């Protein structure tokens, strides 16, 4: 190890043709790589605690309002959650291959694998969009539009094949995704029911966590686009690929967050089955 470090330091000083491969304040490309890698992990540590705060809030409210949290979770579709989990894991595989291509110094392959990662990440967000749209129809957005009575009724109708007709006549449109306006008697029913507030809290956590997760993905797309442009121009070599490896770590971290969100949000109420 020491011998190779010396050898590389020697090479770097002898041959300035290495260009950006080795910054002057590093002894060797290994040291430079390990420092960059460590820095990215330090950033991910802050991310763990960032999401950790939301997981802590979820844990406390779920402990306090266990029954309603299970019923609220049952509104979500575990099938779509599972499909999205596999889509996101697949985008992690393509990302792993992007980093592998960087290790091999194959610039064009980095571009192709990162492109595939963006495509499957985009598929994940597309499925999420349709879920959120459905959530708006059920009035579970934690705004003044929220209605637990409506959500439970419409959800059990949907499970029993009640799609396609709406007995309440949606003449008026709400402000999120044109969802039908909730009739006044539903609003009164919710006002009398303390469980409605607890369910609203579950959906507040659900939307906070999934939208913060989605925001991380969108930021990841932006960084990937920049790295693709650099890779296309042959900026990364087998000796210098820390940026590719760092976006890889970031993307796998986003995958990790989802691996925990899936059981906590989608599977919590799955045992209640249809129509609850």
């Amino acid at each position, binding site marked *: 190890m020491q011998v190779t470090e010396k050898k590389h330091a020697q090479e770097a000083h002898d041959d300035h043709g290495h260009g950006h491969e080795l910054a002057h304040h590093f002894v060797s490309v290994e040291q430079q790589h390990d420092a960059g890698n460590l820095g990215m992990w330090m950033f991910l540590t802050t991310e763990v605690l960032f999401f950790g705060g939301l997981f802590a809030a979820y844990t406390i409210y779920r402990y306090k309002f266990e029954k309603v949290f299970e019923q609220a979770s049952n509104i979500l579709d575990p099938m779509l959650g*599972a499909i999205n989990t*596999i889509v996101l894991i697949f985008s992690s595989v393509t990302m792993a291959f992007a980093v592998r291509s960087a290790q091999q110094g194959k610039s064009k392959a980095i571009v192709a694998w990162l492109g595939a990662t963006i495509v499957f990440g985009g598929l994940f967000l597309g499925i999420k969009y349709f879920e959120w749209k459905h959530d708006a129809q059920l009035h579970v957005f934690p705004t003044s539009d929220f209605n637990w009575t409506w959500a439970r009724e419409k959800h059990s109708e949907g499970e029993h094949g009640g799609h396609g007709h709406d007995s309440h006549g949606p003449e008026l449109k709400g402000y999120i995704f044109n969802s039908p306006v909730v009739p006044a008697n539903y609003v009164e029913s919710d006002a009398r029911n303390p469980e409605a507030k607890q369910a609203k809290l579950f959906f507040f956590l659900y939307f906070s966590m999934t939208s913060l997760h989605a925001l991380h993905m969108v930021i990841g797309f932006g960084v990937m686009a920049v790295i693709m442009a650099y890779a296309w121009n042959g900026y990364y070599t087998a000796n210098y690929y820390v940026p590719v490896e760092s976006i890889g770590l970031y993307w796998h971290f986003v995958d990790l967050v989802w691996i925990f969100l899936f059981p906590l949000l989608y599977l919590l109420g799955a045992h209640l089955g249809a129509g609850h």
Partner: protein
Amino acid sequence: MSLHPPAKAWTYWANFLALCVLTVVTWLTARMDLGALSTPVALGIAVIKAALVVLFFMHVWESTPLTKLVIAMSLFMLTVLLTFMFTDYMTRNYDVLPPADHAAAAPGKH
């Protein structure tokens, strides 16, 4: 000269397959009513999946001891956050919202 010899491609596909199988397993076990065991089972599977991602996709299996220390520290700090917050909430008797049993005890009342 390459900094790190790249991993064999099949290890990534094998990891993907294992993660898919675990996703299906956690979904199937969640549909069964395991009672008090359901959360430990779901979180146990999630931890195994997370470990596969961290060790093989994030290459922690072959990372430097310093990187491993930073990861251990992040898990430790997360444990501190959750444990101390939870011991506080579990040992105090105040409510931040109307209690869950309020509705069950007196339905239809304010």
